[in-house]
């Protein structure tokens, strides 16, 4: 590849510049609402990276991942909203949410240790729903979650005197809340990418892959499979909890509605579609699956331009096209759009 010949700092420099300018380019080219969508995409990148540790590395099919996202969001909301009258700064509320999510990762992981494959998927799916239903019903006798109404007026992230929900002018450049949020989320996303990369190429990461490949042989090779599976659940949950807290601060409002089974499935789709266990693939899958359904909202306009009138309701057509796109990818790129070298070979061998 020609990129490989260029000095690394140049590639990194261009990438950094591109990422720094992205919200302004998007704002100018597509409009303000797309900057918020980019923020959301970064949030899903974080979630997908977390689930990738559990599913992609350790091979534990977790369909209840959204539970940790919900826990992180609720902890942030409890600690930084008028609901309990607490207004902790984000640097205190976020880690607490991530820590509680990690604790629940271990708690929910423990009873599933003996389960493999489909059975694990069914049990984790149940756990995901249990958390959501708890959030829905914990408004009586003591009002903890405010039930289906959710929690409102959650504090935005504040750095010093600067609130990330308001437009700020720095160095003569105007940043909207969505722009500032982008930089915050980008910072966290880069940190999680870094952590994922380092873990993948380590004693811990190899042990996870060994468990995925053959759990019995992994145990006989000296891996404490119980501890390492719990560690995978905890790490994944930490990422999820962190993303949850950021989501709560970003939206300012959360309700159990946001954390349904469909979310878990979408995050799983992102990593399967992008390329399981492969960090660039996971990032690509998350960005694509966040932006594609939004882009497909414009199908009404396309129809009007092409035919002069709307034949199919854009809302219906959008999900239809989205579904077709998923099916097409799985048919023609079964290892994902950007599979790791490992998985590409695996599927090539299977096809022979």
């Amino acid at each position, binding site marked *: 590849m020609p990129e490989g010949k260029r000095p690394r700092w140049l590639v990194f420099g261009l990438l950094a510049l591109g990422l720094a300018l992205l919200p302004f380019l998007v704002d100018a080219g597509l409009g303000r609402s797309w900057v918020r969508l980019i923020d959301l995409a970064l949030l899903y990148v974080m979630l997908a990276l977390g689930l990738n540790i559990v599913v992609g590395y350790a091979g534990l099919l977790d369909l209840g991942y959204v539970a940790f996202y919900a826990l992180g969001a609720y902890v942030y909301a409890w600690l930084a909203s008028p609901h309990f009258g607490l207004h902790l700064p984000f640097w205190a509320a976020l880690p607490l949410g991530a820590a509680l999510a990690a604790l629940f990762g271990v708690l929910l992981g423990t009873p599933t240790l003996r389960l493999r494959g489909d059975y694990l998927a069914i049990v984790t799916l149940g756990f995901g729903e249990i958390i959501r239903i708890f959030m829905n019903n914990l408004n009586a006798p003591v009002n903890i979650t405010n039930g289906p109404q959710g929690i409102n007026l959650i504090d935005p992230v504040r750095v010093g005197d600067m609130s990330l929900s308001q437009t700020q002018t720095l160095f003569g450049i105007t940043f909207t809340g969505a722009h500032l949020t982008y930089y915050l989320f980008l910072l966290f996303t880069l940190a999680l990418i870094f952590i994922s990369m*380092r873990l993948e190429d380590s*004693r811990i*990461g190899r042990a996870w*892959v*060994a468990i995925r*490949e053959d759990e019995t042989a992994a145990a006989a090779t*000296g891996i*404490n499979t119980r501890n390492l599976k719990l560690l995978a659940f905890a790490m994944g949950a930490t990422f999820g909890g962190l993303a949850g807290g950021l989501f709560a601060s970003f939206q300012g409002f959360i309700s159990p509605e946001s954390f349904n089974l469909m979310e878990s499935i979408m995050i799983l789709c992102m990593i399967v579609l992008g390329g399981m266990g492969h960090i660039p693939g996971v990032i690509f899958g998350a960005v694509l699956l966040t932006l594609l359904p939004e882009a497909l909202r414009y199908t009404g306009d396309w129809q009007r331009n092409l035919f002069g009138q709307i034949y199919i309701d854009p809302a219906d057509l959008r999900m239809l096209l989205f579904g077709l796109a998923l099916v097409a990818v799985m048919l023609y790129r079964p290892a994902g759009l950007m599979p790791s070298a490992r998985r590409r070979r695996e599927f090539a061998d299977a096809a022979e």
Partner: protein
Amino acid sequence: MSALLAVSGVSKAFGGLQALSDISLQVNAGEIFGLIGPNGAGKTTLFNALTGLYTIDRGEVRLNGTRLDGCKPHQVLKAGLARTFQNIRLFAEMTALENVLVGRHARTHSGVLGAVLRLPATRREEADSRARAMALLERVGIAGHARRLARNLPYGDQRRLEIARALASEPALLALDEPAAGMNPAERAALRDLLLQLQHEGLTLLLIEHDVKLVMGLCDRLAVLDYGIKIAEGTPEVVSRDPSVIAAYLGDEAL
């Protein structure tokens, strides 16, 4: 010689099937001990019972005096008993080198923090593991395959890789479940040399094998299992003349 592995009165039943009845045997430090018997005699069951994959119903297993019965597989390995499998169980989608690196897991310690921050201790440990893993691949003669996926190695090399992975944990006793199965004569001869070399370096070996020639030529002592019962034990010469062994292998009429 002292007993490195002491198995006493081990029994294991699966429902109504008594797979192992009251097995007792001792493997002395530095010897190659063979475990033979007809198909279904309970050899692999005994291996699984020793290495913590099965919990035993009765009896006791000690390695260098440490109780192994009731231990989890990873604890058995840490205590110094490593094994290979009859039907090769490598981590198919990992490279040969990675497979051996996983074998180092029990002898290394770095955790999440060390991995993320690449602390000096972690770097040293990782470099040391890689050097040892490469040396082991060299040792079993497949260093040239270090970067290839385990699944793509030729059959004989997969068996060697499994031995290298087991050796990576620096075991006192290496238990091999039919290491020569499916190998051609040249591969068998190379395996034989490797095992003798390992013994020479002070490793104790416990070996399940069907190839009588290999077993008789290699093992210092043997135990023979039949229907989960130990029917003979001793040097290859003694065992091969034992009437009950001949009966088990060839039928009562042969006598």
